[in-house]
Structure formats: structure tokens, C-alpha cells
């Protein structure tokens, strides 16, 4: 966490998904950056997003290759494309379902998990298919 990224992590503690957004053109920028990747404005702010989206890419980690995550195997790593903007990706794990449910194109929604002083946004399968 640093000055550029603090609003994301402070939002997570409040159980809100908070992303950087350009005031000039409305484009979401993630990970945060000092200037807008669409219009190059440096007038950026942070906003709460709904946290609903679609699984865009995923990997199911089945071997204990990541230090600190050995006990979590198997787990699903997701890039979720949020509804707010085409190509707006956030990372998370699939929770409340087995990893093999992490199929590309499935609808998911953000949930928050507090663990050992760290709050992380995660994703669970959406209860209702999107209209």
C-alpha cells in the first residue's frame, strides 16, 4: 500500500470495492496510475464500484507452488471483468464454491474476507444470472 493505492485498501476494510477513476473522461484505471490511460489527464479520483462482473480468465492452482499459499491448494485465481467498463479487470479468488466452478463467462459478485488483519475482496458466483 502506498499513497497511490491506499484508497483501494482502505475501501476493502470498509467492505467496499474502490477503484481509481478519471474525472476528466470517466475511465476506470486499475491498477492505479498517476495519469489516465485513456485521456492522459492527471485529475483522478477513487469511486466505489458495484463489484459485479464476469470471469474473464482463470487458473486453478493445484500444486503448492506459491509460498504462503500451500495450504490453500486447490484454489481458483480469477481475473473478473467488471460491468462498469469493458476490459476493467480485478483479481480475486473464487469463494463459497469449488474451484472447478470458476468457468470463464460465469457471473460473479464481490464479497470481502477479513483474515489476520488483511481484508481482501473475493468473488462468489452470482445468485441470479444477469438479465
Amino acid at each position, binding site marked *: 500500500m502506498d499513497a497511490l493505492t491506499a484508497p483501494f485498501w482502505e475501501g476493502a476494510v470498509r467492505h467496499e470495492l474502490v477503484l481509481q477513476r478519471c474525472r476528466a473522461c470517466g475511465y476506470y484505471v486499475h*491498477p492505479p496510475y498517476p495519469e489516465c490511460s485513456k485521456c492522459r489527464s492527471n485529475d483522478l479520483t477513487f469511486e466505489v464500484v458495484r463489484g459485479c462482473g464476469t470471469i474473464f480468465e482463470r*487458473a486453478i492452482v493445484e500444486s503448492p507452488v506459491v509460498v504462503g499459499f500451500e495450504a490453500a491448494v486447490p484454489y481458483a485465481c480469477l481475473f473478473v471483468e467488471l460491468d462498469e467498463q469493458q476490459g476493467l*479487470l480485478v483479481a480475486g479468488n473464487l469463494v463459497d464454491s469449488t474451484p472447478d466452478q470458476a468457468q470463464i463467462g460465469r457471473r460473479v459478485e464481490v464479497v470481502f474476507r477479513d483474515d489476520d488483519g488483511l481484508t481482501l475482496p473475493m468473488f462468489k458466483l452470482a445468485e441470479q444470472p444477469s438479465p
Partner: protein
Amino acid sequence: MSRSAIQNKVAVVGVAYSDVQRHSDHTIGHLAVSACARALADAGLRSADVDGISTYPIPGGPPTGPIVDGIDVVSVEYVAQAMGLDNLSWSCSVANGTIAAALVAAVHALAAGACNYALVFRAMHNPQGAFGRVTQPRVAGDSQFTAPWGFGHNVIRFAMPYSRYMARYGATRQHLATYIVRNRANACENPDAVFFGQPLTVDDYLAARMIAEPLSLLDCDMPVDGVGAVVLTTSERARDLRQRPAYVTGAATLGLPPRRSLGLTLEDFMTAGRRLARALWANAGLSAKDITHAHLYDGFSYFPYLWLESFGFVREGEAYLALQDDMTSRTGALPLNTSGGALGMGRLHGTPQVIEAVLQIQRRAGTRQIANPDVALVEVGGPTLHCGALVLSA
């Protein structure tokens, strides 16, 4: 088409590997000197002839401790010192692009007259212990948006775009098995390959231990201790040397990735791949239809799909189907990775792609020799930051 300033001005005249093993008893510095000396001998040159040298010196995997020259990596300074290269007038260590960018830099230097005989090498050391494990108690920068969810391993990173390719186009692991098994069959005819004499079946592949689904152990090239080296000179000088020259008809690198993003997406890969392809075809004055064999980096098994599509051999989303027939076999219209590729040769970071193209052009590929080796496409690196490509011609 227009000709670039480098077209056929420079040729590859010598190639060699060090001994390549999963773990060598020798230091990587010793292996680098061995490969460079063999490549010079292959060309019929002496170390006193060498006046240019380049490499891509970045460690082959995440460092597990302090980085020592000659033990963990090999710099141009190390080789120059160890081989007594006292006549250098040009050297280069590239930051991006693997051995392809080091080759492209040497081609430019030779064409511009900055040197006359250039030695280019890539050294890969496989540290003891599980490969690629990273201990990161704290993360900063963009990785703070992936590492806390357990994304911190290259196999996971590269599994993501493949998952999208499969879902989007209907490709399966059974489809990729065709390529994997054919690749290994090529390696079985290549005495330089770490998997020489070790055939693989479709069932072996489908039963392999999964690392990060859809990538299993057999979808990743095996880390090795090994070095590949290449000698280049101007085309005029090349005609007087021992081997038939493999002329550099075109050469290009990606430069930098198209844009920053959270991780790797299939779309990022294809954007980068198409840009590299445009740069290479413009530089070479050629297109896919002119190529008679291809050597496409396969450090992760599915990369050849993306390269075949990026370079325009097949339409997007169709490479996995094209690989099901004999098109890419040694007797097909486009023989592919006849050496066994990265998967068969070990993790030498694309150097085998370069060396095999040269051996085919020189008609020195033994039982792997193809009938028409006149125009080769060589691509090195994944379709991200570190990639470059060349067209080599007889």
C-alpha cells in the same frame, strides 16, 4: 516490398550448445565459455577474430540469493575475460527481448560496421530447489493487486490467457497433446535435446501433474543448466567460412509491451504478437506465405498457437485445429520446431529456435532434416515484453 537496410547483409556462420543438463556439475560461466568456443570452432574462427559480443544477461528464474556473475548469470564481461577477447570494438547487454534482441543488436552493429565477427549467447542456470518459487513477505507496485490472492508464480500468470483461449475457441488439452507428442518425437531425433530418446504419449501428457490448470508440468519447459551460442559476420566475410551462411533477411523486436495491465490477457498477447509480426514482415519484405519452416518459442506449450495466428499462418482461433493435421510435421507445408522446441530441448530461452533454424538451412539437421529449409521464421520469447523474431534464409 521495400528492403530494409539490414536485409541479407549479415549471416549466422556458427552455432553450438554447451552440454545441457537439468543440473550441471560445471558452473554456468564454464558452460558459457564452452558453448562460445564450440560456436567459434563451428565457424572456423578463433577468439582473436571476435570483435563484437552481446547477450541477454537476465537470470533465467527468480533469484534465490545474491546474483554472482559466472554462477547465477553470465555477462559479456565474464565471457570476454574468460576467453581473452582482447579485440572487442562493440558489446551489448540487452534489457528486453531475450537472445532475439541480442541477435538483432549484433545484426545492426555488423551491418553498420561497428564490428566484423560477433558472438551472441544466452546462459540459463537452474538453481537447486523448486524452480520459480518466490518468497515475498511484502509486495508493492502493481503486484499488490495480484500477489495477495496467490497469483505469485509464472505458471499461474501464463495459465490465465490459455484458459481464455480454450474457452473462447473450444480448444482442449487433447488438442494440445498433438503438438506436445510431435514435439517430443522431434526431440527424440535430436542428440542435443535433454529429452533425446525419451518418447511421450498422449496419455502421458494428459496424466501429467497439474500445476495451475490448464497448465500441467508437461506444459512448461524443464529448467536446465545450459548455454547456446551463435556467431555472426557480414555476408561478404561469411562466404569464406566453413559453414554455409544462414543470411539474416529480417529482424525485429517488440520493443516494449503495448500497455500496462493487471496481468496477462489473451488480448494483450495477440496485440503484442501482431505488432511483432508487422515489424518483422516489414523489415524482411516477406510474409507468412514465403516461410518454409518455423521455429516458434514454446516455453509454455500453447505459445505456438498464438504465434501461428499472430504471424498470419492461420486465422485467429484456428491454430489449435491446424496443428491436428500434418501441416507442421517435418514433411508438412510448415515444419514447426523440428528440434523438439523449448519443451524438448529444455529451458534455454529460445536459443534452440535460433540454432535449429540455422542447422536446417545449413542442411546439418541429421534425421530431422527437412526437404526445403530455404526460408525460416524464428521467434524467441513469449508474446509479452521479451520477444523478438528473425527471418533466416539460405
